[in-house]
């Protein structure tokens, strides 16, 4: 169900490796379903540096607001400004047009500790069963 070529976090973010040190980040299909209709996505400024596990923004849905967290340490290289006018892209295309930020990873940072698609599937199955 979740794309095999991405990595995942227990906070329900996905990470896509781009070229070199750069990655794209968004939230998973499971996360958008839990949130419901997204009405606003608050994103950081380009060139901001954020540590892993720090919030990089927030997602407003009808029911609630939820923070989204940096899966890895790095510098914001790009933000998806299309979400200003089309926040619903997070619902309709979470792994594509619903991407949120691109990050240049800090020195020494890498993706090996993130979850694989299979590990993430198992994780949300366990979480849903609670």
């Amino acid at each position: 169900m979740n794309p095999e070529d991405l990595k995942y976090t227990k906070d329900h973010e996905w990470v896509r490796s781009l070229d070199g040190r750069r990655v794209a980040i968004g939230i998973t299909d499971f996360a958008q379903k839990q949130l419901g209709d997204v009405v606003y996505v608050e994103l950081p400024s380009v060139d901001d540096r954020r540590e892993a596990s720090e919030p990089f923004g927030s997602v407003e849905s009808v029911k609630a607001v939820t923070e989204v967290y940096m899966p890895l340490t790095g510098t914001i290289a790009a933000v998806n400004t299309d979400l200003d006018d089309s926040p619903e892209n997070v619902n309709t295309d979470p792994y594509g047009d619903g991407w949120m930020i691109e990050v240049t990873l800090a020195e020494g940072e890498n993706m090996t500790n993130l979850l694989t698609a299979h590990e993430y599937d198992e994780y949300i199955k366990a979480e849903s069963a609670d």
Partner: protein
Amino acid sequence: MTTDRRTPLDAVHDALGATMTDFAGWRMPLRYGSERDEHTAVRTTAGLFDLTHMGEIEVTGPDAARALDHALVGFVSKIGVDRARYTMICTEEGGIVDDLIVYRLGDEHFVVVANASNADVVAGSLKYRSENFDAVVRDASEEYTLLAVQGPASTEIVGSLTDADLPALKYYAILRTEVAGVPVLLARTGYTGEDGFELFAAPDDAVALWEALLAAGKPHGLVPAGLSCRDTLRLEAGMPLYGHELTRDTSPYEANLGRVVRLDKPEDFVGRDALAAAQEDVRRTLVGLTSPGKRVPRAGYPVVDAETGERVGEVTSGAPSPTLGVPIAMAYVASERAEPGTRLAVDIRGKAEPVEVVALPFYKRA
């Protein structure tokens, strides 16, 4: 709290692909698809709700009306048979225990509908407060399933399934009839700001009634609707919610609901003295807020002075309004700041966002 109570429609909701949530110990549908689409359907066509979690308490006997006059703030004995009234049960100190709808089914027969989270407390209080009256209080919640059809197409949809004279059924009136062959108490009440009906039926009939309403409603645009859109609908309609706008620490006067407190009742009632005093001392007032921005004031966020940052109140409910397209909220603010047009700010996670006090409701049907 554990989710151990399931409505008779539990499997139906699952089959419809609903996202389920825990509400006061009940497993309830939060949304079936897009909550904004469900919200819009109720505003423009119709929505079908499972509200089985609501509590139904029957009060019967020769003194039933007098007992309720004593227990509640409203003038219950003045309610006509087959009519309903919005009222409240308050503490001796004048705080709100719950808001209620009281239906009068006969001279000596009332059904009190309480919020799910309060059903036990309200039933217990009514029993306690009725001890000196010739009246019997019985929690009948297990005997009723409650469905609601809300929205401008409601009359056509329900009318296609019943012989009852719906145009003659006034707002806040109730009658015994059959809908789709199912015996129901059919009331013209709701919590959405739209015309609509609430149907009390036996739990064994819930699935048949739901399926019949869904089938009859589909050609009119009716969709199943969850608790998420129920919340945005009631918020737009300026209707308070227990636990948010209404608590044991708020008085009906602060909530702009002084009209439901009948200090003119001839006999004493629980909370009377405290409420008479509270009427003269309304230090904070429930207001509507709108924001020109996109960030949404949520329950618990501080309301502050736009210039000084001084705290002047607190948000009780907030959401992006599907109908208005902007964030809306209800908040208690110091009464001198409650005038519509007053400019304030809400501290949204550390950043003051400008808001304006507006008259409630945010939305009124045409």
